[in-house]
């Protein structure tokens, strides 16, 4: 019997081994996949069990948290929701997160391992760090100026600091209050449904996620290509360009809004925005040179992030001569985000250097000690510094005596370019009004701000829509705010 008792004991041993192996499978091997299962509520319970860290614009917190007392304890609040929604995005207990709330989620929710005071400590102590802070590059005054300037009409504003790429303002209009659907209640669901079904698409961040035909504002790129390629060496010399200009290999005649465009100088053509001169110039420069210049400015870049993804601005790489001519004046299928056009203006202001735009200045722990600081980074050179200085002259000329006089600021060198982009089938859509510009206090070597404004207000009279009329005053207000004037 002794032998058989031992055999039975071996059976018990086998059961113990099976339990231990299985426990290791469940608790160690499968642990991560269980944690990642969407039906496992531990992640959200932990996430909402502590107040979320805040996003700052300047010294002001533009987000907050409130204690709901429910099982998902802390809910996001936004003291000035619509103003900063294009920057912060939303962090909803029901609908997830976007933009900064999403990009810096690890810091804000406290899950980022870098928040730990000592490496690996959290893995051992199983402590959750308090949510860290995200200091944005946004300048509250500029943001407010852009938001008020748009005044609820459809459009977007992006402003950057040319020398660094810091994003100073990022506004999309109409906006929304991200706090209205931050929780899980019925009213949150209703607010979300109202916003997602609205024809105005308030949740769309037009500044970085919508592309528009840039229209005449794109002539800055075409001019840079013409000057850099050596096709034009003197901006005051007459060009050889007919008015109207027959698009190559077609019967279509391209015309101008302004007069005096036949064989106009580049300076004058830029000042009054001659379509014919720039269409001809684009064709003259050629597809490959136009594409490489556009790409140097940032077009056709799928990977741009601020850190949230920025929609790709497009300059077609496979076009015939007529299409290239139209693309050179920002039509055909050329499309750009407002942020991209702000980068174009910034490149001119910064001597031809394109800086990587960024929205997060630094990420810190709850006590304010830095976790990560963003350093400015040069992306590409869009043009030579000589070309840049010529373009600066041309853009200043537009504001002093051309289409952009509405952007003038006393005592400040302002360079700009208007655009009024046709779109829709047979150009039947209401045109988009563009204005891109930069401002540099007289006597100063650097421009502290470059801005791009697009207004797509369908409610306005079609004839009244123009870059100089609708967009330039908004750009002026933003530049004033940055300059502190």
């Amino acid at each position, binding site marked *: *019997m*002794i*032998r*058989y*008792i*031992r*055999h*039975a*004991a*071996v*059976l*018990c*041993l086998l*059961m*113990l*081994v*099976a*339990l*231990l192996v*299985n*426990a*290791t499978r*469940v*608790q*160690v091997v*499968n*642990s*991560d*996949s*269980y*944690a990642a*299962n*969407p*039906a*496992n*509520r*531990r992640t959200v*319970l932990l996430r909402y069990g502590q107040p979320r860290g805040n996003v700052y614009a300047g010294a002001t917190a533009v987000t907050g948290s409130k204690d709901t007392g429910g099982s998902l304890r802390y809910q996001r609040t936004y003291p000035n929701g619509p103003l900063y929604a294009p920057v912060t995005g939303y962090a909803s207990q029901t609908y997830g997160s976007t933009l900064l709330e999403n990009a810096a989620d690890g810091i804000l929710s406290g899950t980022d391992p870098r928040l730990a005071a000592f490496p690996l400590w959290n893995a*051992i102590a*199983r402590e959750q760090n308090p949510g860290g802070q995200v200091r944005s590059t946004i300048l509250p005054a500029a943001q407010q100026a852009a938001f008020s300037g748009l005044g609820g009409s459809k459009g977007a504003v992006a402003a950057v600091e040319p020398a660094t790429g810091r994003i100073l303002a990022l506004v999309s209009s109409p906006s929304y209050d991200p706090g209205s659907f931050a929780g899980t209640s019925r009213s949150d669901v209703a607010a979300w449904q109202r916003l997602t079904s609205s024809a105005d698409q308030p949740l769309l961040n037009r500044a970085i996620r919508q592309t528009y035909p840039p229209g005449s504002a794109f002539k800055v790129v075409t001019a840079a290509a013409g000057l850099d390629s050596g096709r034009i060496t003197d901006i005051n010399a007459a060009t050889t360009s007919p008015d109207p200009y027959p698009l190559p290999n077609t019967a279509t005649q391209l015309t101008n809004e302004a007069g005096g465009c036949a064989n106009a100088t580049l300076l004058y053509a830029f000042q009054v925005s001659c379509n014919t001169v720039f269409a001809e110039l684009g064709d003259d420069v050629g597809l490959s040179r136009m594409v490489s210049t556009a790409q140097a400015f940032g077009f056709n870049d799928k990977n741009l992030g601020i850190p949230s993804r920025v929609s790709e601005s497009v300059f077609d790489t496979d076009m015939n001569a007529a299409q290239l001519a139209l693309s050179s004046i920002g039509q055909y299928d050329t499309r750009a985000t407002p942020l991209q056009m702000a980068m174009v203006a910034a490149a001119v202001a910064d001597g031809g250097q394109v800086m990587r735009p960024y929205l997060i200045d630094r990420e810190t722990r709850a006590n304010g000690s830095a976790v990560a600081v963003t350093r400015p980074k040069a992306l590409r050179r869009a043009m030579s510094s000589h070309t840049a200085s010529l373009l600066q002259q041309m853009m200043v000329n537009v504001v002093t005596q051309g289409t952009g006089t509405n952007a003038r600021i006393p005592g400040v060198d302002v360079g700009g370019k208007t655009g009024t982009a046709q779109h829709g089938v047979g150009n039947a859509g209401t045109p988009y009004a563009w204005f891109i510009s930069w401002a540099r206090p007289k006597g100063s070597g650097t421009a502290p701000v470059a801005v791009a404004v697009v207004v797509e207000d369908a409610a306005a009279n079609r004839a009244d829509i123009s870059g100089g009329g609708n967009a330039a005053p908004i750009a002026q207000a933003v530049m004033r705010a940055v300059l502190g004037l």
Partner: protein
Amino acid sequence: MSHFLLPVAAFGSGGAGRPGRGRAGDTGRSGGAASGTGGAGRAGEPGGAGEPGGAGGPGDPGRTGGTGGSRPAPLPAVRLPRRRGVELSLLAVAVLISVYGYVAVGLAKHGAVPRGAGGYGAALAVLAVLAHLAVRWRAPYADPLLLPIAVLLNGLGLVLIYRLDLETPGNPAAPTQMVWSALGVGLFVAVVVLLRDHRTLARYGYVSMAAALVLMAVPIFFPAINGARIWIRLGPLSFQPGEFAKILLAVFFAAYLAANRHALAYTERTLFGRLQLPTGRVLGPILVVWTLSIGVLVLETDLGTSLLFFGVFVVMLYVATGRTGWIVIGLLLAAAGAYGVSTVETHVHSRIDNWLHPFASIAAGQGAGQLAQSLFAFGAGGLLGTGLGRGHSILIGFAVKSDFILATAGEELGLTGLLVLFLLYALLVERGYRAGLAVRDSFGRLLAVGLASILALQVFVIAGGVMDLIPLTGMAMPFLAQGGSSVVTNWIIIALLIRLSDSARRPRPLTAETGEIATVRPVEDDER
């Protein structure tokens, strides 16, 4: 667990070598008989890690007779260690660990030592001391590990239940469980004090069976609770008579098998040369028990108890007869029964589906089922656990304090804590088996093996169930889970194991006449 088995292995050979010491003449004479299995009967005493004790010499009353006769030298007097001091120290450790857990829960949840901590610690200490005194009085040679392990598991169970109570305000279970634990310890004391010799129980084999059948049959006439007819509800009290039936059936099996094991071991056919099949005539009992298990399963829809009864019976049958054929037949019958019932009973069928696809309900958009929640809890624990009071095992919902209590342990104490719990159970079972090896009579051996196997199978079935190793069946984790009947039953099991281990380690009264027979006697007893 291998290191637990080592002493067991050493134990047989130690016993065989033992008679040689100071008894040269003996070894020469009884030779083969003494060095065989018979040595095991006495092995426990010298196996006590070389503690021959002081030289009692002629003062030892039991040994005085041995010095006479034809022996060349007087026996070295051995005072057998009782180890009651060890037991008491281990009990103190068990109580302290439990109180520490209780305090840790309070600190984690409210940042303060919970108000009941003192009372809880005092109550547990009083119960432990009472049990210890009973053992010291009436079972002084009992295994010193059994009681501390039981107290520790019971204490930790109370901590876990108290911890879950904090998530369900207005529905506390820990105070009730404390009362049941006290009742359990009371019965433990009663058994240890009143049952002076376990062999008394062998006389009541058939009575036990009848009582067990009645206990199991009664709940059929009560309404089903949560899909199983295993409860009797009388006012606010509800208990599961099937829990008590476990012990009664183990007693019956042990008595029946001890009496009939030679007949049952008789084989006439062999399969593949090794596998010995029992004769058709003696298949009767196993078929009866099988039918009983299936009956429990169908009438009470209680898969766990059914599995447990059948498993324990097969193990005991094998130990009694040594016939592997029984095991094969048992497994085949179990498989056939399980298959047959699962095709008929949706209750059982869904358990199997759930076992194979624990996350099916998530894929179907219905959220995580109980088993999935249990796995999430274990997974969240990881290697070191979240710490007591910091997990979310309450998400499991229904039965989180009873069947799923292990998930709370797994989440908050981690794989490390779970490992400790499993090893505590393994140690408990091993001590039971060791008592089975050391006790001298067949009934005692079978009873010890049966009781230890009940604990082992119960842990395996419920731990394997909540961790998706085997289909989930409702069953209480011994001592840990909420459930009065269960904790009381387990205390009685520990009391019986204490009694068995005491009788195994207690020195037998030797007289001058029987002195040399003592070495041989266990062999006779075993073959009887």
